[in-house]
């Protein structure tokens, strides 16, 4: 039981890593400000890969001031918090991203993955189950 649990967590992390590369190439919706937002997003990515999580968060928040309804930015911020093991914050931010991405299935899957990992981090099994099944249901849907 425990083993399969761990296996699953590892798998989720792999999925996330795989999708992590995807996230930064996602097209951004805000047309006019896109250059500003994507340049800040790029810097955030750089800081994150250097291990400067909080710097990365600060840059994402600058981008969010320009495009407050951009679900990709909220999602990435959730990812930063997840990395810092700020589980509750990560889950909340992913939920925020979800409400702004009703037409973006893949982003929603990623958000539910973040939530699942955060639930796992908090040791909340029922929350993990729910998030996992949400992600799976979305992946199956058309």
């Amino acid at each position: 039981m425990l083993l399969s649990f761990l296996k699953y967590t590892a798998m989720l992390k792999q999925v996330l890593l795989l999708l992590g590369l995807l996230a930064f190439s996602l097209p951004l919706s805000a047309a006019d400000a896109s250059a500003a937002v994507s340049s800040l997003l790029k810097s955030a990515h750089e800081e994150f890969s250097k291990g400067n999580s909080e710097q990365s968060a600060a840059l994402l928040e600058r981008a969010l001031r320009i495009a407050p309804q951009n679900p990709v930015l909220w999602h990435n911020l959730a990812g930063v918090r997840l990395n810092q093991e700020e589980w509750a914050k990560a889950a909340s931010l992913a939920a925020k991203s979800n409400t702004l991405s009703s037409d973006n299935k893949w982003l929603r899957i990623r958000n539910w993955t973040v939530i699942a990992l955060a639930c796992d981090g908090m040791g909340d099994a029922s929350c993990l189950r729910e998030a996992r099944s949400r992600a799976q249901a979305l992946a199956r849907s058309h």
Partner: protein
Amino acid sequence: MAHGKTYKRRSQLRQQRQKKVHNQRFFLFKLRWLLLLLITIPLLSYALTMDAEVRERFEGKRWALPAKVFARPLEIYAGMEIKLAEVQTELSDSGYRKTSSLDKPGDYYTRGRDVFVYTRPFSFWDGKEPARKIRIRFKNKGTVITHIAELEKRKFMPVLRLDPMQIAKIYPTHKEDRSLVKIKKVPPLLIQALIAVEDREFYTHNGINLYAIGRAVWMNIKGGSWSQGGSTLTQQLVKNLILTPERTLKRKFNEASMALLLELHYEKDEILEAYLNEVYFGQNGAHEIHGVATASWFYFNRPLEQLDIPEIALLVGLIRGASYYNPRKNPEKAKKRRALILKQMYQQGVISEVQMEESLGEPLNVVAKQPRSKTPYPAFLDMVRLQLKEDYREEDLRSEGLQVFTTLDPMRQRQAQTAMVKRIHKLEKQNRKLRGKLNGALVVTRPENGEVLAVIGDRRAGFSGFNRALNAKRSVGSLIKPAIYLTALENSRTYSLLSSLDDSKFEWTNKQTGKVWKPRNYSGKIHGKVPLFKALGYSYNLATVHLGFELGLDTVKNTLIRLGLDKDITVYPATLLGGIDLSPVEVTQMYQTLASGGFRTPLRTIRDVLAHDGKPLNRYGVQVEPRFNPASVFLLNHALQQAVRGGTGRSTAKALLPEHMRLAGKTGTTNNYRDSWFAGYGSDLLAVAWVGRDDNKSIQLTGGGGAMKVWADFMRIAKASSLSKTSPKYVQWRRVHAPKGSLTQRAGTVKIPFIVNQDSGMLAYSPG
């Protein structure tokens, strides 16, 4: 007998005398040692105490540094909607100088639809912004930025962050203003000039300069008074840093001995650095300017590294008499003094003859307007202090030189002030009885991240006194109603926007007191069955009370707490109609949750805090917490948009808001028209306005007739963005027959959002 007696006495006397002499000798011998001891011990202890004092004063925390508080930095990008004039105002308010060419950081000028800026370098929490020469090009009559070009690198910048405006300082109790500079950062020319003028043998003497003292004594004897110096830089530092400013010989002696001790313990550069940070440069209101770094900003509005020869000469000249040579008050004296310094610099080989000649011809270059010593944003600062208090001690704020980066947006604050000041004036014109009696508060935030952009706590802009935004706790009236309707809409199987509510007579008897509560509608009328969104839009009291009782008072209380009400309240039936006292800031916190789509987002006035040397201390990141189903909040926001355009806000919205603006909001009016409230938002701005009297008397204004006008003026001036039309998941729009008495003016059908069942995809509530 008598003889024998005499003899005996004589010999006794002799013996006694001999004994006395012996005693005396012994005593003298002892006295010598005693005197030596008596002199040495105090001398030694004097030296030791002085040594301890010198070391303690020099090695301990030398100075208390005021905290610096900054506004948000202006970030601009291609495609941003901002007026050219607003960028100019921002630049000049943060001390940029209008020039004709970009020579130094801090210069800017406008040509046609281009603004040219030489930005000042700045270190932020997340990195450094270097000084850059920039062109900002505008289009659409100077309302939108086309591009930002970095001139020297010949490339476009996607986003540019300017250095932030300093909006306040939190001063030490002794009111010294100072920021520290390392000796390596001080221009060598300034050090050379200082030494050439104040202490030519600085690098060779050992604390005191006997020749200089001798010369000074001679001059003083000739002049007949003890006034002229001869002090080395070390002595001056001792005088300012350690001793009290009395002019006695004893103090002179102390000063000289301490100078010797100081030189014994420390390097020349350490002493020089301390001197440069200690020296007094003038007065700014109640505050003393100390140190070359602060002085550079105070007089030239530029960092020390960027000063030129004539400016350096002026600073060095001011050391001898900052008020006498005050370049703002006595420019002629200052110029003469500067000429003298330049001459000495030339004579000592610090500058060339050409440099001296050129510098002599330069204007003083002092920024005419003395920097403010009081903050122009006192109401906002009150909130900053509250947030700081949670993590920092008062004494640290006053002494550690912290750099506090706030969320204040000077542009929004200006717009908010304009809206408040002008509208209060107009309201008083309409009703002469109110003249001078009306007051108000306005809080502006960003819905998505909770940043407070502007706060107004008084009708007078910049007035620092009673802060109504934070401290006026007033009855909120109908502003509370959205909490009740949201409680209903969360229960999507039972309620929709079209649910029929009962607007009929209501009576409630308090079982303990026997008192009967009989609420009424504002109009006094009874409307019978009304659709839910209409009851909210028209703010019907009776329908609301019936609904509240149906839902249960405790459930409503729980909603208030989930929205962000941060105190324990007892909910009475009268609470359903807003019988609860809240400050505008508290109301803002609750509406923040509605404006951000159901996520509780704590209000913040601080983004981050750095130590005085730029080391990151605290960052206050955005925090969100899902508190309500986004679909329910979407429905509520739809109803609140109807309230603005078709309900109690109708006439004010028609008169003051551009038709394209899709905003949600709610009016609040309290008993006998004592308070006029409005809380409303679009997608980028949330604003809560209150208008009333401090003596709590009637102002004869409804929420729509008073506060909403302030709010609408602000939203119009600030060009608030409309709410998004995109509906969240599990919301479907349905066209339904316009119900009787619908808010829509048109006959026929209206589109109304409904929540659908997550599993079946059917409407959760059937309107049929």
